[in-house]
């Protein structure tokens, strides 16, 4: 560290802040000349009080809570933007593709007085030598990468400034095809057939995808009242869901832009199995309601003042596939309604966090919704609550259950187990911008909450949080993940921002455990710069991470004691044409022998079958493979399947019983 520069910067900041603090908080105390401050001000106090960039130290753990593991190698990785230390288990990091240039702030004009001033604070004289950190600091969120969607060999990576489209036909050599410039954040994306959907919530969003935003009002004439109320209704502003035609992947065209009152923070593609003519979009808006002058009908009032308030609802957009330009909102379901009283603000977070005294508050927004049309249900992560919605009529989702949790701060996202008997919710405590995996951050806060789902009822089971402690300059909390299609197990890969990527097995819902991970050190050791993986999703054999600041990560699973090569190969047999993680699809495995081998590995691991039986089954499978499934080998497998079927009836655990049934099915009718 350059002590002089650091010192100068702290001095300048300390003087600035110290002056402010004194003048506002204790105005009766004479203000000491700032120049004297550094003489005696201990560095510690400077660090804590004077420098707003200093990271927040974690407080002591609340009584009865435990934190995370500081002996984990992930706790001590070296910092760096592109050269940070890395460590992994069960995951091979095969690629980091840097963010496209378009999603980086243009070289900061070194002659800009503001830039000069910031650099002055840093003790840097020459602006032309330091564009990178300025980009990171002044434009962190503005160019953040966000969520993913996949189609065929194309990966769509959302960004607050647009969308990047990659060719992933060879995942290890992923290549940028198209950068679509269209600012407005946060750029949540979905893809269906020839249409790409994108969420826009910020007021700089323009119908025409322009990056110029809207001009500030001119300074008032001298002598005029400073605070004038000027309605900022802008007919060219866009907040809602954009629809692009991507028939030509190198020349996407906007075909529709459906405006909503709160914009779209996230959205979810919903496909009705009984309606192939239309696609539906559930819109979750979390930010301010715009004025009715800008979009008719919008209302920011509380429900007691205006029963038609734009709060306390989600929006449903219907997209006619033959005429997507006619897409429009067809309903605004009041999913928080109290069915007994009809009050539209019928849900609250149940308060607490341990203290019974807290008064509940109303839940007025969903943050993200995961639909699972195969079982006719959706799980809504709705700020103060987790919701279960019946979506058999997708235009009119109906709440069938709602849960809250004393340790939950912000219900953020959800995913179902493949059999629909479990739901994993995430808590985005700190909003994703905070360091929430420090050693003293409770491992029940900012964690996954695992629920069983039976008869339309959610029942809490346990929490899972990234077990490794992270530093205080690493934004870290539970974030987006997807299932990994290993048959016979419930496995999710999940992003934890700068906490990296963690793969968790929740087959036994009461005892979820980490089975693989990847992490890199913080972007910076001295202050928190926003970064890390926003999403980590499995798609057709690889895992992709959307790194907010750095770019696109690609990983491969590698065998460990927790996962065999057969299980990895079995997962790779599942191929989908499209993946929009929040539109969850039922995973189905072909009756290939590798699936049987994966089940055998699992039954061996759980010691559910005798070793000799497993050995003979493996031998028979090998024989069938070598003989290219000749009649004799198939007959042998079929015979053996009967025994396995019998074993299933007496298996000690339901999980192993299901595995044996599935194994027997494959052995009966294997395919090449």
């Amino acid at each position, binding site marked *: 560290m350059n002590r002089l520069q650091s010192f100068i910067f702290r001095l300048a900041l300390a003087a600035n802040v110290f002056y402010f603090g004194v003048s506002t908080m204790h105005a009766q105390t004479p203000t000491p000349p700032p120049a004297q401050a550094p003489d005696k001000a201990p560095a510690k106090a400077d660090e804590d009080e004077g420098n707003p960039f200093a990271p927040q130290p974690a407080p002591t753990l609340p009584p009865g809570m435990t934190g995370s593991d500081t002996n984990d190698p992930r706790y001590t990785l070296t910092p760096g933007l592109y050269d940070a230390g890395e460590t992994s288990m069960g995951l091979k990091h095969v690629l980091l593709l840097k963010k496209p240039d378009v999603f980086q702030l243009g070289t900061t004009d070194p002659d800009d007085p503001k830039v000069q001033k910031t650099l002055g604070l840093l003790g840097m004289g020459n602006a032309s030598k330091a564009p990178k950190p300025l980009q990171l600091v002044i434009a962190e969120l503005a160019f953040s990468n966000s969520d993913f969607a996949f189609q065929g060999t194309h990966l769509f990576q959302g960004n607050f400034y647009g969308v990047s489209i990659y060719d992933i036909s060879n995942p290890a050599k992923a290549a940028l095809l198209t950068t679509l410039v269209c600012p407005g954040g946060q750029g949540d994306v979905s893809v269906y057939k020839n249409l790409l959907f994108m969420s826009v919530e910020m007021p700089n969003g323009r119908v025409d995808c322009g990056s*110029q935003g809207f001009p500030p009002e001119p300074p008032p004439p001298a002598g005029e009242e400073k605070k004038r109320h000027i309605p900022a209704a802008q007919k060219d502003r866009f907040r809602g869901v954009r629809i692009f035609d991507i028939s030509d992947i190198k020349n*996407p065209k906007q075909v529709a832009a459906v405006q909503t009152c709160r914009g779209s923070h996230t959205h979810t593609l919903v496909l009705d199995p009984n309606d192939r003519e239309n696609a539906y979009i559930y819109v979750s808006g979390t930010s301010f309601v715009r004025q009715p002058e800008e979009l008719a009908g919008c209302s920011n009032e509380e429900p007691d003042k205006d029963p038609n308030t734009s709060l306390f609802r989600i929006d449903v957009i219907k997209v006619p596939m033959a005429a997507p330009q006619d897409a429009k909102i067809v309903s605004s379901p009041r999913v928080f309604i109290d069915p007994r009283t009809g009050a539209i603000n019928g849900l609250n977070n149940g308060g607490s966090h341990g203290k019974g005294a807290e008064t509940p508050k109303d839940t007025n927004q969903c943050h993200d919704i995961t639909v699972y049309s195969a079982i006719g249900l959706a799980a809504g992560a709705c700020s103060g609550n987790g919701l279960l919605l019946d979506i058999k009529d997708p235009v009119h989702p109906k709440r069938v259950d709602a849960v809250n949790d004393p340790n939950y701060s912000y219900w953020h996202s959800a995913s179902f187990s493949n059999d629909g008997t479990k739901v994993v919710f995430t808590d985005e405590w700190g909003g994703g911008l905070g360091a929430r995996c420090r050693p003293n951050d409770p491992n029940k806060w900012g964690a996954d909450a695992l629920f069983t789902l039976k008869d339309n009822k959610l029942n809490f089971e346990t929490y899972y949080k990234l077990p490794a402690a992270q530093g205080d300059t690493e934004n870290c909390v539970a*974030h987006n993940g997807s299932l990994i299609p290993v048959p016979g197990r419930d496995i999710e890969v999940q992003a934890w921002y700068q906490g990296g990527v963690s793969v968790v097995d929740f087959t036994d819902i009461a005892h979820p455990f980490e089975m693989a991970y990847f992490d890199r050190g913080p972007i910076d050791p001295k202050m928190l710069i926003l970064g890390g993986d926003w999403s980590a999703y499995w798609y057709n054999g690889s895992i992709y991470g959307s790194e907010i600041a750095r770019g696109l990560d690609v990983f491969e699973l590698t065998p460990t004691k927790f996962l065999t090569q057969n299980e990895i190969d079995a997962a790779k047999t599942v191929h989908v044409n499209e993946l929009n993680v929040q539109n969850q699809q039922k995973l189905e495995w072909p009756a290939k022998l590798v699936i049987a081998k994966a089940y055998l590995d699992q039954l061996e691991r759980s010691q559910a079958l005798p070793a000799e039986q497993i050995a003979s089954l493996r031998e028979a499978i090998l024989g069938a493979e070598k003989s290219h499934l000749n009649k004799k080998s198939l007959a042998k497998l079929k015979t053996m399947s009967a025994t396995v079927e019998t074993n299933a009836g007496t298996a000690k655990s339901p999980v192993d019983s299901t595995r044996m049934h599935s194994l027997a099915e494959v052995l009966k009718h294997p395919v090449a």
Partner: protein
Amino acid sequence: MFGYRQNAKLQLFTVKSASRTGTQVVGLRCGFLIASALASSLSFDARAQQQNSTTPPVVVQPGAPGKPSKTLPPSTKGTLPPKSPADVEFMQGMIMHHAQAVEMTALIPSHTENKELQSLGARISSSQSDEIKFMKRWLAARGEAISMAMPGMPDMDKSGPAMALMPGMLSPEQMEALRKAHGAEFDRLFLIGMIQHHNGALTMVKDLFDTAGAGQEADIFNFATDADNTQRAEIRIMQSMLDKKGLDK
């Protein structure tokens, strides 16, 4: 990502945990960062590969619905929406505004035994202190002054002449009454005052987004959205505390 930073958990903490919430990112600090970032931009990182497609990538900017898309030069770089003086004033004003909330909550330990209020106060103090820090970072990183240089700002010196306050801020008289009150009367004045104060913050956020060209920058958008959500929730809590206790009678 970026649900609002609801700091509900913080109520478990005592006042000394005020520093605990949201390290709200952003910021430049020391020469080390410059040095490391410079080093990484100069030395080519072998891991971060360049794309190797057969055809070069394109940069496309779609037009309005139904309009053709434009192809932009590959060298195109991102730009930020125009800076609005209203953004800077919002941040500077909100720091002032938040500072009064912290000042109010600081009275709680010596003025009331109400555990519920103490818990609420700790949480408000914590989240507002945290947000003050974020706002200072936002301003400092952009080379802006932390406090407003112009006249017309609230005068926190209670002995001075009354000046225009930010929306919802308690007048010197109200602050004095709060300081003098104890027990149930303090609880009542605090809740009424803090609801007034928080409603002022909502007004400030509304004014920000109602100002042409303001609130377009991603960090301030996210911050203002969070502040709005958090304070709305806290208003409801305080209102129901008032209702429950019949304190507003």
